C-alpha cells in the first residue's frame, strides 16, 4: 500500500471512514501530508476521540525520546549509559501502558505499508533508489520487524554517525511499531 500523500486525498478520505494508521498520524504530526490529506486527517481527528488519544500517545513518545536524546552528551559514556537506561525504562513503561490500553492501538497494518514508510524514511538520507535497493535486499530474505531495525541501524550509523544513525533506526522502529507489526510478522 502506498502512502496517503501519493494515493490522493479522495481515496485517503475513504480510508478515514475507518481510522488513519499511526504512520499517517506521525506524518500528520510532522506536517508531511499534502494539504488536502492533512485537512482530511484533521477533520477525522476532530470527531474521533480514539485517534486523538493515539496522537497524544505518539506526541508523548516523541517528546520523551527527544528529551532523552538532549540529555545524552556525545562524548560522555556515563551520561550515555544513563540515557540508555532511562530510554529503556521509558520504553518498558510505554509498552506496559500500551498493553494495558489495547483499545487505543489501531488495526494491524499490512507489512507492505510499513515497508513503504521505511522506504520513504530511508530515501530522505540515502536517496530513493538506494533505499529501494536496500529494502529489496532485505525483502529478498524473509525477515521480521526486529530484523529490519537491526539491518537499518548499522547501515545508518555507518553513514551518518552514532546519533543520526540511531535516530533513523529509532524512527524506523517507531514506524514498525506504529503499524503494530508483530515481531514475527513475516514479510516476503
Amino acid at each position, binding site marked *: 500500500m502506498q502512502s496517503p500523500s501519493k494515493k490522493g486525498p479522495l481515496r485517503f478520505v475513504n480510508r478515514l471512514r475507518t481510522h488513519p494508521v499511526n504512520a499517517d498520524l506521525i506524518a500528520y504530526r*510532522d506536517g508531511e501530508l499534502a494539504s488536502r490529506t492533512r485537512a482530511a486527517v484533521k477533520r477525522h481527528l476532530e470527531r474521533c476521540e480514539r485517534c486523538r488519544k493515539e496522537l497524544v500517545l505518539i506526541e508523548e513518545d516523541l*517528546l520523551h525520546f527527544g528529551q532523552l*536524546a538532549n540529555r545524552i552528551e556525545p562524548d560522555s559514556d556515563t551520561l550515555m549509559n544513563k*540515557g540508555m537506561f532511562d530510554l529503556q525504562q521509558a520504553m518498558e513503561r510505554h509498552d506496559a501502558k500500551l498493553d494495558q490500553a489495547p483499545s487505543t492501538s489501531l488495526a494491524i497494518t499490512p507489512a507492505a505499508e510499513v515497508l513503504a514508510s521505511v522506504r520513504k524514511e530511508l530515501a530522505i538520507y540515502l536517496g*530513493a533508489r538506494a533505499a529501494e535497493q536496500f529494502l529489496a535486499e532485505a525483502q529478498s530474505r524473509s525477515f521480521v520487524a526486529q530484523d529490519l531495525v537491526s539491518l537499518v541501524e*548499522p547501515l545508518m550509523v*555507518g553513514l551518518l554517525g552514532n546519533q*543520526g544513525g540511531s535516530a533513523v533506526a529509532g524512527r524506523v522502529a517507531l514506524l514498525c*511499531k506504529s503499524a503494530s*507489526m508483530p515481531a514475527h510478522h513475516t514479510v516476503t
Partner: protein
Amino acid sequence: MKSLRDGMQVRSLSEIPYSRVVLVLAALQVSVGIVVHILWISTGNLSLLRNYFDYQGSIYFIFLDVLTLWLCIVAWRQFRQQGSLRSAWFLISLAMGSKLAGDLLKHWLCVDTYINPLHYAWVNWHSSAAGRLNVWGSAIAGPLFMLILAIGLFKGLQHYKKIHMLGKLRSSDLIWVGGACLYALYVVATVIRVAASEPFIIHAEWVLTWPNDLFLAILLLEAILLMRTAVDMGKGYLARTWGAFAIAIFLTSLESVAKWMLDYNYMSRPEYSIMWYVWFIWAAAFALGPAYQVDAVRHARSRGMSASGPFSNPTAAHALPRS
C-alpha cells in the same frame, strides 16, 4: 517522494540548513561578480574588479574554508566506531584544514590589500615575500590538499563498496577514466623531462606543486565513481554530499583544462576570465559536501526520535513489540 526542501522544515533561524546558507552565499557572490564584470567590460574600470576579487573574493574564500572545515569536523565527530565513515571524514577534515591554510596564504597574506596585516607590519613585504607565500599557499591548498582529500574520498568509496552502494562505471565513463590516466602519465613525463633538463635550483615549494595535475587525475577518477554512486542512490542527503564533492573536483578539472587552453592559445584571456567565477562555485561545492552530511544528521535528530547509543544498541529494537 518528498524533496529535501519539503523534508527540512525550517522553524527558526538556527534550523536553517547549512547547505542552504552555502548556496545563498555562493549565489550572492556570483551575482555581485556578474554585475562587477559587466561594469568592468562596459566602463573599463579595472579597480572595481580588482577590489571585488581582492576583498570580497578573499573574504568569501576564507569564510567558506572556515565553514567547510568546521562542518567536516562536526561530521567526523558524529562517528565513534570503526567500520564507519569516521576515517574518511577525518581525512577530509585534514584536507580542508590544509585548504584553509593554503588559502590564508594565497588569498590573504600575499595580496596587497588593507586587510592584510603584512601590509602594515612589513614595508617591503610585497616585493620580497608575496611571491613565495603565494607558491607555498598554492602547494598547501593544491597538491597537499588533493592528496589528503584523495585518500579520504578513497576511504569513503571503500565504505560504500562494503555496503554494496558503490556506483558502477558505465562504458562511457571509461573514456573519461582513460583520458584522466593518459593525462596523469603525460604530467609525470613532463615533470621528469623538465626536472632533468632545467639546470636551475629547485625550490621545495616548486616541487610540491608538480604533482598537482597527477593528484587531480586521481581525484577525477574518484569523482566519476562518486558521481555514479550519487546518481545511482537518488536524491538523498548522502547522495548530495558525495555528488557535491564530485562536482567540486569536476570544476577543478574544468579550470585546469581552461588554463591549459589559455597557455596554448586555444582560449583568449577575456574568455578565460569567466573561469575566475568558477572558483567561487568550486569553493561552495566543497562546502556543500559536509553541509549536506551535517544537515542529514540534524534532520534525523529533528524528526523526534534521537537516541544516542553504541553500535547495535538495543534502543531501536526495543521499540518493537516483543514476541
